[in-house]
């Protein structure tokens, strides 16, 4: 009787997650820079320690296997990867960081390897790991623009022939659980965007959320439906046709190379870390780093986007007119009512 009353009522209303434990196997051995892994250490919504220490209710216990944050080294570290490839570990989420090189465009050697094959003494190709792990994964997540669409390392003239994960596995690919590849682009990925996507998947694995909503480029819809411009605090300058001629101005920088009006990214609203920083909102031209066309279609970055020529001209008459009218009204509103005096 006493022990029963000692159990809080609320606890009895809780249900266990559908799966008690999830492993996250994170491969950084694509052609990348580890910037997406570093980004997740910046996240606070949620933070990585929130996830690993069970700070959020109702989630499975998570074990993270990421080389930058791992306790173990070498073969000890690779053990869960080998287990997973052999079908002895599950369920797991495979996170891929970096683009996937084309290992067939040369006669021998490797562009990217991860660990060594004890039989040959040669590196195990990163793409071989993906071939072995992806079919067994509960979900596969591409972290950052290299892994999603190829990114910087897939620039014209590159020697490695690299590509994004969906180009490698196929855009129609589905995991054993029926989940498409989940793309979280960004160069690097916005920290909270990634952690929030991971949190959604863990919630889905726990049986508490429906299938993750993705757009046709496999991005989470609630994070990537809006353009930078739609969330940019300099959008008001654009509306008033008030364009900066030089970097360092607080006005709209679309004429200086900002691609914000067409790029799908929430950085203007979310900032970079704890709401601080970003791109055009703090004076950095948007170079389109979340987009499949990045980087080639946005280069040279510091030239005005061709479309901005037309749109910034079209808005000129309207913008200048409303700016003048608002200036007039603003002047009036800056005066106190006339009866406030001694």
């Amino acid at each position, binding site marked *: 009787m006493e022990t029963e009353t000692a159990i809080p009522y609320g606890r009895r209303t809780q249900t266990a997650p559908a799966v008690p434990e999830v492993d996250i196997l994170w491969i950084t051995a694509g052609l990348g820079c580890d910037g997406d892994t570093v980004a997740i250490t910046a996240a606070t919504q949620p933070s990585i320690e929130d996830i690993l220490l069970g700070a959020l209710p109702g989630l499975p216990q998570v074990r993270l296997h990421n080389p930058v*944050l791992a306790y173990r080294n070498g073969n000890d570290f690779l053990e869960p990867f080998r287990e997973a490839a052999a079908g002895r570990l599950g369920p797991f989420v495979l996170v891929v960081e970096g683009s996937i090189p084309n290992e067939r465009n040369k006669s021998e050697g490797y562009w990217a390897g991860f660990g060594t094959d004890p039989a040959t003494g040669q590196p195990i190709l990163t793409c071989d790991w993906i071939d072995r792990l992806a079919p067994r994964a509960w979900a596969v997540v591409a972290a950052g623009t290299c892994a999603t669409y190829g990114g910087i390392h897939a620039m014209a003239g590159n020697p490695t022939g690299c590509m994004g994960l969906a180009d490698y596995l196929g855009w129609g690919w589905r995991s054993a659980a029926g989940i498409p590849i989940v793309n979280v682009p960004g160069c690097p990925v916005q920290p909270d965007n990634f952690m929030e996507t991971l949190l959604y998947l863990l919630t889905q694995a726990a049986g508490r959320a429906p299938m993750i909503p993705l757009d046709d480029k496999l991005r989470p819809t609630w994070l990537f439906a809006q353009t930078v411009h739609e969330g940019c605090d300099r959008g008001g300058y654009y509306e008033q046709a008030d364009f900066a001629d030089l970097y360092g101005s607080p006005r709209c920088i679309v004429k200086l190379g900002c691609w914000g009006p067409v790029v799908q990214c929430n950085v203007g609203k979310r900032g970079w870390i704890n709401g601080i920083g970003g791109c055009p909102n*703090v004076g950095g031209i948007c170079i389109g780093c979340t987009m499949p066309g990045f980087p080639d279609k946005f280069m040279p970055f*510091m030239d005005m986007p061709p479309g901005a020529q037309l749109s910034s001209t079209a808005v000129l008459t309207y913008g200048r007119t409303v700016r003048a009218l608002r200036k007039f009204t603003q002047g009036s509103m800056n005066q106190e009512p006339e009866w406030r005096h001694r």
Partner: protein
Amino acid sequence: MSTAQPAKPPQIVEMSWDPITRIVGSLGVYTKIDFANRRVAECHSTSSIFRGYSVFMKGKDPRDAHFITSRICGICGDNHATCAVYAQNMAFGVRPPALAEWIINLGEAAEYMFDHNLFQDNLVGVDFCEQMVKETNPSLLAKAETTAAPHGVLHSYRTIAEIMRALNPFTGALYREALQMSRLAREMFCLMEGRHVHPSTLYPGGVGTVPSPQLFTEYLVRLMRYVEFVKKIVPLHDDLFDFFYEALPGYEEVGRRRVLLGCWGAFNDPDKCDFTYKRMSEWGRAMYVTPGVVVDGELVTTDLVDINLGLRILLGSSFYDDWQGGETFVKADPLGNPIDQRHPWNQTTIPRPQKRDFQGKYTWVMSPRWLDKRTGHHLALDTGGGPLARFWATALAGKVDIGYIQATGKSVKIYLPKTANLPEQELEWKIPRWSNTIERDRARSYFQAYAAAAALYFVKQAQQEVFAGRTATFSEFQVPGEAIGCGFHEAVRGVLSHHVVIRNGKIANYHPYPPTPWNASPRDSLGTPGPYEDAVQNCPLFEENGPDDFKGIDIMRTVRSFDPCLPCGVHMYLGNGREIQVRHAPMYGVQGPGEGGRS
């Protein structure tokens, strides 16, 4: 290295760790370990990733260089962007307004604060944490439990074992506090450079950051919180590292190599720096971290032109074809000095993927060396993980004197003013007796204080510009048809240079040299091993485990002391050690102190 001969017949076991974790990038270390004499007999380091920046940047717009090269590194990309901007400024002939330079200095200072903090207490720290020490040296942990921490009053951990527990991954209090402080420092970074780790607001000619009193207020308030943190962690790390010297006599030999340090300087003084090559010697010496090459404790030069002219990129064990007969892009520098075909300005990168062969070619890393014109030796300089070389060069040069920081000729004094809960504090980094694992790690903590103190000075300078109404942050420029440029900077983990050649308004050649090619380089064409290899080779082993459960902790600590950042790698195999040969002649483990960087 000690010249002591092995006392027992060697028992050589091949061991490798691949991948080495808790670093950035892919690194493997392959060793032969003499368990009879508890010493590393041989070491090769290898990296298994190639991306090809110097290949795909050809023909691109030179204004794009900093956006592109930032993507080289995911933890210090902004160091690349900054260095690229320096090279662009030189090539374009543009001098940014002073305020822009203070803003960049503040951003870069925040990067050092963030990165050293994260690396020291979340990556390196795990090698010193309770869980690890229990696995590798249980008797050392027992001793730590009963050893009082001399500075416990400052940092609140009473024993060395309490410090070790606080470093346990995720569950340790210091581990988690460090993560939080690294976020605070990244907020400071983003105030100045927009986004981390690939900045949005840097441009050739200046920055897009909008200066206002608010910008510097937001930075300063966070900075002082970081300063308070630094006042605790510098004495904390002194306690931890001194304990290793005291508890494990001979630990100073772990990771020790000849003093061969390079520092390319950081934080320009906008009053002096006009980005012209011709005056580079002068404005280089005015940097707030003094550039320099230190050989056997002697400061060989502080001249960036000398440093530039001595750069040589060697092959030997790397997966590339040679360019010796290739195009010479730059025959002489703007001062008329001849430029060698093996200099980055004249390098042509020709990747040649092939099987890995430790007797032949085994890595994607090349072998940068510095030609010491006094001796004709191609020195395998290391960076000491960054801070050790920065401190050593700055201390010996004795030039930096900004109130918060004073270089004395044999030490560097750092002044941290009063914070909310702690009184003022003066720290002094003194030139150590060794260039070894512990001193690389110790210097990292002190450099967190250095960066914070420098930032206090930069905030004041920036505020004065704003208060005086000088708020422009950008100078206009034209991209010339033909030009060359170079940038010198300190990435978090050491020397960084970018060399660009522009023809017909496009990039004709571009070669970045980050710290990791210096530190992780393989045996070069002259047979000189790279610094990781050199520091691990002959390293005495203090781990209590035998071959069957060997963790290689002393090797791991040594490799990590350099703060590896290879978006490349060192590989070692662990466990299941296979005994490969038993030699009775003491062939291994013998290396004189002068041979570390033999050329």
